[in-house]
């Protein structure tokens, strides 16, 4: 928001003109178009299934937002979802009570986060490379432990609890968990010193370190959070679909990253907000749901998500470039922001 002078426009106007507001406006447009023109979209089941579908994406997107804000990335999340799903299933199969199995999966997820965090924060390795490696490793462990078999004999009351709605409303009970998680991450990121450190690190890790931010510990905490939340998403995924499989949630990381970037988080770090990401996740959910209702198969959904992802990062650049050419304005910001980099 650096381009808006502090004294320029009133607060309400600045709030309306943020990148997040753009995403939310877009979401409203897409939702309206879907309601008006897609048969069945206004039915009572739409909200239920929409929330059930986006739950794992939204859960994982929350810690991912914080990680991307620091300028790092975690590509291994979907594999952690798969691995925790398998561990949850195996623990259940071995006769461990389900609450303990949930705890076991969560601990395993946090440990995955420790592996990523130590390699990135303490060995200083690039998170992109590290998490491509752990993406393969964690998925390999998941598939190795269970082969292509599946654990499906979860108690009906548990699998139904994962899908049940709150008495009389279309909202599934998991909505409570989602709202709580969003609130926790919104406060953590936007209302605490920890959150300020995360943003400082995204603007400049060096500067953050010199001003006393424990950058290594912060990064480690974020990766552990990411692993932990991914594991919870894995447990949910297992119960919702009633099966623990090694290939569960393959490719989920792409949807998560697409949603985070669509939600206005800068891939270069330093900028982003939780409410934008929630809108980004909802956008992908609504689009998928509407397209499926139209009888469009999975392939077109992927094209749309892919194109949206590219558009969401390209369009600000294009608009900025056009504005930079307008003679009335001083040439925008600094140097052509380095050349493209991997991260």
């Amino acid at each position, binding site marked *: 928001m650096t381009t808006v002078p502090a004294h320029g426009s009133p607060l309400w106007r600045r709030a309306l003109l943020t990148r997040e507001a753009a995403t939310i406006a877009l979401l409203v447009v897409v939702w309206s178009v879907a309601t008006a023109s897609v048969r069945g979209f206004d039915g009572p089941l739409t909200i239920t299934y929409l929330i059930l579908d986006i739950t794992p994406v939204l859960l994982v997107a929350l810690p991912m937002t914080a990680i991307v804000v620091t300028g790092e*990335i975690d590509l291994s999340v979907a594999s952690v979802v798969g691995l925790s799903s398998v561990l949850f299933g195996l623990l259940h199969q071995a006769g461990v009570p389900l609450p303990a199995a949930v705890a076991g999966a969560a601990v395993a997820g946090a440990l995955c986060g420790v592996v990523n965090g130590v*390699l990135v924060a303490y*060995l*200083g*390795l*690039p998170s*992109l*490379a*590290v998490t*491509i*490696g*752990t*993406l*393969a*490793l*964690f*998925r*390999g*462990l998941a*598939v*190795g432990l*269970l*082969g*292509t078999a599946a654990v499906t004999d979860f108690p009906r009351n548990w699998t139904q609890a994962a899908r049940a709605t709150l008495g009389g409303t279309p909202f599934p009970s998991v909505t409570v968990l989602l709202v709580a998680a969003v609130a926790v991450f919104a406060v953590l990121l936007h209302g605490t010193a920890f959150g300020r450190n995360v943003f400082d690190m995204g603007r400049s890790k060096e500067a953050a370190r010199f001003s006393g931010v424990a950058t290594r510990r912060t990064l480690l905490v974020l990766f552990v959070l990411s692993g932990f939340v991914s594991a919870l998403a894995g447990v949910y995924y297992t119960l919702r679909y009633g099966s623990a499989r*090694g290939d569960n949630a393959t490719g989920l990381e*792409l949807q998560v*990253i*697409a949603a985070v*970037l669509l939600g206005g988080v800068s*891939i*270069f770090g330093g900028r982003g907000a939780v409410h934008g990401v929630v809108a980004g996740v909802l956008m992908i959910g609504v689009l998928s749901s509407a397209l499926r209702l139209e009888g469009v*198969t*999975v*392939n*077109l*959904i*992927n*094209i*749309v*998500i*892919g*194109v*949206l*992802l*590219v558009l969401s*990062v*390209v369009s600000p*650049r*294009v608009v900025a470039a056009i504005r930079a050419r307008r003679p009335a304005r001083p040439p925008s910001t600094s*140097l*052509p*922001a*380095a*050349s*493209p*980099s*991997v*991260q």
Partner: protein
Amino acid sequence: MRAVGAALRSREAAVALVLVLVVAGTTVLQPGFLLSAGGWRDLLLTPSLVAVLAVGQAIVVVTRNVDLSVGSVLGLCAYLTGTLFAAAPDLPVVLVVAAAVAAGAVLGLVNGVVVAFARVPALVVTLGTLYAYRGLVLTWAGSDRIDASDMPHAFLDLGVRQVLGVPVLAIVAVLVLAVAAHYLHTSRAGRQLYAIGSDPDAAVLYGLPVRRRILTAFVACGALAGLAGVMFAARYGTVSSGAGTGLELTVVGAVVVGGVAIFGGSGTVLGAATGAVLLVTINRALPVVGVPDFWQRAVVGVLIITAIVLDRVLADRRARALARARDVRNPQEVAR
């Protein structure tokens, strides 16, 4: 001892050594792995495809970019190959290969244009096109597929034929490797790719044609993915809309294991190709030695992580050695 040390510092040699150990170990347990006609052929043939992809990927990675869409590009071009043959069985093979390579180059060009001109991180762009290109194949192919009977025998024979005991596809891979290595190592443009990767800002200030070079790298990578698509069609004889799904992981893994730094500026295509052969050969060796192949991906993951940790440790050691050398030299200078 010094020779061993030097060899270990050369990543290509180290990876090749591991490769030899894997092959030797597997052959001891199961002689047919190397010593039968089929074993020898598969040893060379199976990695060829991934090696070609890895060479293309390495060209992009040295510029501090990455192309995650290669698996989808391969799928599209493999399906194009099959469709062309199905529509016109009499087309010369050369023409079809050229068409597929050109299609791959165009897809790579799209990636390159967005990366170079919109200055968007390659990771994001190619993640998007990974989705989008795969969606294109799926939309185009629907639930159709290309079967072996749709393609001419002359073409399918390329997938298995051998010249002096070396499969044709392996020869193709070696030729690609040789040309790319020569280009990167000796040409001015090739050296500039490394310069761009090691310090993008400096490259801009120095006046290098950064955009054009990055565009070239992506086009080359796309074209090679297209070529790999042709190889896929020839080798497997069946192309469905899912061809090549998930290959990007193996390819990026191969490049990293082969010593190409993910942050650009260093590494060779020879290393990347050797890394590809190593990963594929480990995949093939595991079931032969009795490890359930479900563990393959875990092994790949461990290899990637080991490779980057090793890189860091070696780099640190080198930096310390340089610092020590400076500290040793400086007192003398003072004394003088």
